[in-house]
């Protein structure tokens, strides 16, 4: 039964990464492919209609972990408390920037929310990459299933290590930073025309 739950959760996680990854990538490339405010609105419009639908898969992942593997959820929230709240805030800020960034035709207003949009997508790529790296490495749990570790510690590969500042975790973060822009680039190529599409 536990393998079935892991399979369901993994499938949903794959679908989430495949669908929302294009939004991460497009958001990370936002400043690099769009040079004017009009072009930036074009990038936002490419991911605008469906970004919230893709996030539903993330909520489904957590819901199914909570239902099927409650101890995993309890351990994950305890161990990844700060990282999960950073992810939550990044998702919230990304949504706000997508929704309100174009409401006022002011360069300062739009520039601010463009910055928030790009920054939150970069941070999401780093955090999701580090989380995947930590899952492969294994999360230290005590006999009660509790996990308590620092957000960062040192660069050692063994012993008491933290979430981010560890060689494996950092490389996995870099992998996220390298992979998602390609994902966003292919999506933007298919979904945009005009200046963003031209050299």
């Amino acid at each position: 039964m536990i393998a079935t739950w892991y399979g369901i959760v993994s499938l949903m996680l794959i679908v989430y990464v495949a669908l929302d990854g294009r939004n991460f990538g497009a958001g990370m490339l936002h400043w690099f492919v769009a040079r004017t405010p009009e072009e930036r609105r074009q990038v936002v419009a490419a991911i605008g209609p469906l970004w919230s639908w893709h996030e539903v898969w993330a909520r489904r992942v957590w819901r199914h972990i909570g239902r099927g593997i409650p101890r995993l959820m309890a351990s994950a929230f305890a161990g990844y408390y700060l990282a999960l709240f950073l992810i939550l805030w990044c998702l919230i800020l990304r949504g706000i920037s997508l929704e309100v960034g174009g409401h006022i035709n002011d360069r300062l207003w739009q520039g601010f929310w463009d910055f928030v949009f790009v920054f939150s997508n970069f941070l999401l790529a780093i955090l999701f990459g580090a989380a995947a790296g930590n899952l492969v490495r294994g999360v230290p749990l005590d006999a009660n299933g509790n996990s308590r570790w620092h957000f960062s510690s040192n660069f050692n590969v063994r012993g008491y290590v933290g979430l981010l500042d560890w060689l494996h975790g950092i490389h996995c973060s870099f992998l996220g930073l390298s992979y998602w822009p390609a994902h966003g680039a292919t999506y933007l190529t298919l979904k945009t025309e005009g200046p963003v599409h031209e050299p």
Partner: protein
Amino acid sequence: MNRSTNVGKVPLGAVVPLFLAISVESWVVRPDLPGHAIHHPFCWLGLLVAIVSIVMLISGLSTHRESAGFPGVEWSPGGLVGHRSRGYFPRDALFDASA
């Protein structure tokens, strides 16, 4: 070549070296992992999917056929998760669904 593809290809060059580095580091920090993974069918299936999808992505971006590269980029997360499933799935079922 369009602007999006041009920008997206720059960081993509780091994906393969990083993947190899992470594989070696995984072996250092989880020496038990390769021994168990080598007998796990999902490891090989995931590796196959990941390699095919990354080749599709790179060839799609290189030959200006982004519609061919897009399925590659969509499938590569599945391949990577499958390849690493031995690490994701705990060897001893630490978490009991009924707990």
